[in-house]
């Protein structure tokens, strides 16, 4: 009998393990560039605890422990112990790569998900759906708080596209920036989608509208090298887990 929470746990932990393993050598190289020389010290844990820079061997060891723990959790070996090991090693490994574009803010949910799976697995799926909703709602509120409704008039999105072109020579970004109307439509859709994402919690029968829009939105940012699919994307398994478990139970191998 496949349980949705177990399926989500396996899919999520497995995806994070694979993504980290695939990028491990790159992350070690980033660590070796001493990013704190550019950005200052890494974020303090809960804004209180400064984390000492580990030596290179310790850093790599923590990364390997994280990968192995997530893989073990995915495979169901010592599930709770593996989750705990991943939770602890996260705080030793990720602060030193948190400035990487695909890690910055996108990996923050990992320890929260691990904690939820460890402490309250029976309510993991609604809790994680709630977490995703809060993240998107928070992003929408931040836009309104900073810029008001004019954020959706297309100019801000145009500006980011122009900046992408000037920084990375992406002609597709320049091409899209030429249509103020298209930029306004995209901006409005994004803002409304973010602010209304909590609807998936209240009206779950309509959640697919927000989930599919989210998939399309995050796919559209890949050409601009904004990779939400790394570290944040596996959260979307929470929407597929109930359906996947039901299908697997009706079609046992």
């Amino acid at each position: 009998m496949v349980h949705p929470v177990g399926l989500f746990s396996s899919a999520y932990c497995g995806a994070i393990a694979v993504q980290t393993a695939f990028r491990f050598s790159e992350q070690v190289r980033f660590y070796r560039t001493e990013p704190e020389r550019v950005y200052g010290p890494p974020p303090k844990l809960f804004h209180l605890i400064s984390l000492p820079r580990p030596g290179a061997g310790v850093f790599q060891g923590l990364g390997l422990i994280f990968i192995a723990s997530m893989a073990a959790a995915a495979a169901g070996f010592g599930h709770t112990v593996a989750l705990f090991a991943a939770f602890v090693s996260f705080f030793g490994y990720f602060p030193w790569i948190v400035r990487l574009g695909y890690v910055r803010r996108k990996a923050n949910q990992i320890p929260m998900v691990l904690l939820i799976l460890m402490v309250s697995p029976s309510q993991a799926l609604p809790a994680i759906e709630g977490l995703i909703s809060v993240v998107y709602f928070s992003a929408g509120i931040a836009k309104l708080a900073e810029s008001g409704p004019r954020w959706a008039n297309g100019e801000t999105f145009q500006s980011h596209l122009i900046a992408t072109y000037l920084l990375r020579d992406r002609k597709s970004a320049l091409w899209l920036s030429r249509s103020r109307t298209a930029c306004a439509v995209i901006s409005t859709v994004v803002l409304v989608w973010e602010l209304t994402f909590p609807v998936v919690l209240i009206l779950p029968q309509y959640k697919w509208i927000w989930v599919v829009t989210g998939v399309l939105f995050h796919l559209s940012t890949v050409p601009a090298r904004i990779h939400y699919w790394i570290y944040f994307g596996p959260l979307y398994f929470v929407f597929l887990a109930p359906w996947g478990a039901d299908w697997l139970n009706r079609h046992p191998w």
Partner: protein
Amino acid sequence: MPVFLLAIHVAVVLMTVWKRDFWPFTHYPMFSKARKPDQVRVIRFALIGPGDRRVWWKPEFDCYSEDIADRLHPDSSRVVFRAAAEVMRLVELEEPGATAYHGVEVVERVLQAGSTVERVVARVAKH
């Protein structure tokens, strides 16, 4: 829902309200500031090679080229020099012993009337 689950969600909402980070609880202000297209200005770094040939610096970790530039105040020569020194350090890390360039240019780029306009803010020689 258990209290601690609610606390995780409340923490994220509070970070948004306070506009602060208590890592890993953070707010999500990316792209939230309103901007006008005619005010977009970016800084890029170019490596100067033989014959003053210019090649854009494209580091393995492209967050560096943008983030070093973001911290740049072109009116402060000390900050500009420090940024250029960081660029040279990172180039040396990626290509140890690199000799193909002899300096770094800090270039401001804007889009005017559909065309890219560049202005060299500073040129720092490699020592």
